[in-house]
């Protein structure tokens, strides 16, 4: 591969100096080894050190570099530059307040995550050894525990955009089901009570944007469906 130049259109806003946000046209020359969008953004920062975004692991496990890429949420570190139409348009995750450039305030997102009591509840005295769980029971947690809290899903969900304070959102609900599905957890009833509300769970209308954007290939819609099933079964 040879050197190539890539065109960008990037959302810029620094509250310290900008009255309002604007879209900046900027291009950058890449090295042959630059494959991912994050590589290009690091290259851009070497040119303009005011370009602000979060990043850490650069391999899709820490969840820092979620952004809106050509209209779709994704992780910069897992997105191939060559798969993107140019100019590559980058915006902060939709629906959350912007702090600066591509950095959003994730307070509301984490508030919803925390609201589902994201920890195992088991009030029996802890045994000396591990609590037993069969491989099949453990299998139920696959597709749930892998969430990296990047917020791609919740910030692509119209229900979350309209009611971020009331609707838990796909990431939080996936986590809720992760504990409901865990045979070691004893808090099933309280967890369901916590979600039995016109907004917290039932604002999900199965639009499935969350499934479409999840960089880990997870399916919050299915998890939400399973919570709804548990609600129904409990009612009968």
């Amino acid at each position, binding site marked *: 591969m040879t050197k190539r130049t890539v065109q960008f259109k990037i959302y810029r806003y620094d509250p310290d100096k900008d009255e309002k946000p604007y879209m900046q046209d900027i291009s950058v020359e890449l090295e042959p080894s630059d494959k991912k969008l994050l590589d290009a953004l690091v290259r851009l920062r070497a040119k303009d050190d005011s370009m602000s975004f979060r990043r850490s692991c650069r391999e899709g496990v820490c969840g820092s570099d979620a952004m809106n890429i050509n209209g779709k949420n994704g992780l910069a570190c897992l997105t191939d530059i060559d798969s993107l139409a140019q100019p590559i348009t980058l915006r902060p995750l939709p629906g959350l307040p912007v702090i600066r450039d591509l950095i959003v305030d994730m307070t509301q997102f984490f508030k919803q995550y925390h609201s589902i009591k994201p*920890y*195992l509840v088991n009030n029996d005295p802890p045994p000396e050894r591990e609590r037993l769980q069969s491989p099949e029971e*453990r299998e139920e947690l696959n597709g749930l525990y892998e969430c990296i*809290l990047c917020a791609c899903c919740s910030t692509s969900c119209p229900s979350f955009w309209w009611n971020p304070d009331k609707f838990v959102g796909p990431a939080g609900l996936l986590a809720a089901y992760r504990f409901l599905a865990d045979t070691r957890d004893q808090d099933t009833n309280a967890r369901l009570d916590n979600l039995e509300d016109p907004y917290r769970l039932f604002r999900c209308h199965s639009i499935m944007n969350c499934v479409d954007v999840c960089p880990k290939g997870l399916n919050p819609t299915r998890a939400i469906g399973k919570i709804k099933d548990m609600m129904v079964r409990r009612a009968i």
Partner: protein
Amino acid sequence: MNVAKRTFDAVIVGAGGAGLRAALQLSEAGLKTAVLTKVFPTRSHTVAAQGGVAASLGNSTEDNWHWHMYDTVKGSDWLGDQDAIEFMCKKANEVVIELEHYGMPFDRTDNGKIYQRPFGGHSMNYGQAPVMRSCAAADRTGHAMLHALYQRNVRANTQFFVEWMALDLIRNADGDVLGVTAMEMETGEVSIFHSKATIFATGGAGRIYYSSTNAFINTGDGVGMAARAGIPLEDMEFWQFHPTGVAGAGVLITEGVRGEGGILRNASGERFMERYAPNLKDLASRDVVSRSMVTEINEGRGCGPDKDHVLLDITHLSPETIMKRLPGIREIAIQFAGVDPIKAPIPVVPTCHYQMGGIPTNYKGQVVVPKDGNPNAPVQGFYAAGECACASVHGANRLGTNSLLDLLVFGKSAGETVVEDFKAGNLSLKPLPADAADASLARIARLDSQTGGESVFDVGLEMRRTMQKHAGVFRFDALLREGVTKIAAVAERAKRTEIKDKSKVWNVARMEALELDNLIEVARATMVSAEARKESRGAHVRDDAPDTAENPNGRDDKNWLKHTLWYSEGNRLDYKPVNLKPLSDDVEPIALAKRTY
């Protein structure tokens, strides 16, 4: 600048595995605790650990902590302190079971117990055969662990200061530690965190190298802060190069791949590890495997058009095993190497991975320095755990899965020590010196006013290239000497870095400039300590210290069975003895021997 003061019983810097484990101890004991972290806790680099955490649970093969201790001492090439190693291996079952009780989704055996897999350097019966000791959640063990620890802290109501970057350690005239200064990223404001106890859990500094498995955030912040505050750094010449980083990308491929049966092959398809480690083969210790790979490449048996890597082959494993035990690896190989490991082998090269040295501590997590003839005198109010600390359990080479164990055991131990010291009334809020924040404010003021300086990117790149070339897998006397001069020159340039971005709000440029200050301390410590150590031991192998009858593997116990201590001021070196005596009478010292696998 106006500097706000906040007061706590304890301040923890870092919210990776060690910081979160320590925080649990303090929160559950009711201490008023602040956890400062420059990223949201679940974004800490513990999240990237893959293969597992060591504990001699014996769920699938017979095992006990004596064997684990032996493997760890041997893995360390006898540079590890045997009291700390005994402590860690004995505590392993307890901390792993606790984690399971916190909700960690370990894989399971057919009878419902925690799943365990073989790992490099771990053996049964003192080196006889591989043992299944690595407790795993698929190949996402670090992710599962970090989230479980964060979740448990949510339950314990731990108070986090998220996206606050610690800047400098505050000490008084007696050398006691009184807290830290820190900057809130969103506002750029600097605050003083005044505390009775300060625990560093800031992780490693793998980003001093050009090719690294480490995250962008692994900039040795605590290590740099400690060095600037006059604390010596221990054994910084020892860096682990992980055998299997994706060639070109650096992203980690877990040793668990070899634990599940993966094989390293050279250009002719040969399983070359059989020649270097006839017994454990591909599951020999990491330093041994990395050197073998580099030797294959240097002798022209590398793969690819440039013969610059070897291949990690799992095509003989069933797709079901790969999908069940190594799903994350498959994703990484497809994403970063462009191959599906079910069908084709993964191109890999040794890649900088882990810092064995760090801030000197004892097994209780207390930071210790030489004072009045005592090589290990505790610094009042200062504790450290995890990769930033050197207990020393890893010595000259760490075994895979012992890092996650290290952060659990010593995170907990540091927390327990603080709680004990607190309850015994040994901790008090000492008066802050008038200039407590001056050093930090001066660093920021310099960045605000500097003109005509070089970019952080350019100086950082020069540092990474220098480290890669002069202090790599194999070390050469001439290159090390030259490296010392070069790194000193880079350090001078780092004093004059210039940033264009002057915003107060989430200023990444400022953060990176401040991080470079920390990286530079680590790079200097590494190069100077490595140049001085005239032997081969563990991960530090020199051309002028070859394998001889007198010094097997080039190791010179007569002159170099000692820990290095590097002081930032004056680039000064000192040494202290290795503790060859275990903590209790339950075990005999592991006697010095030549290391073979």
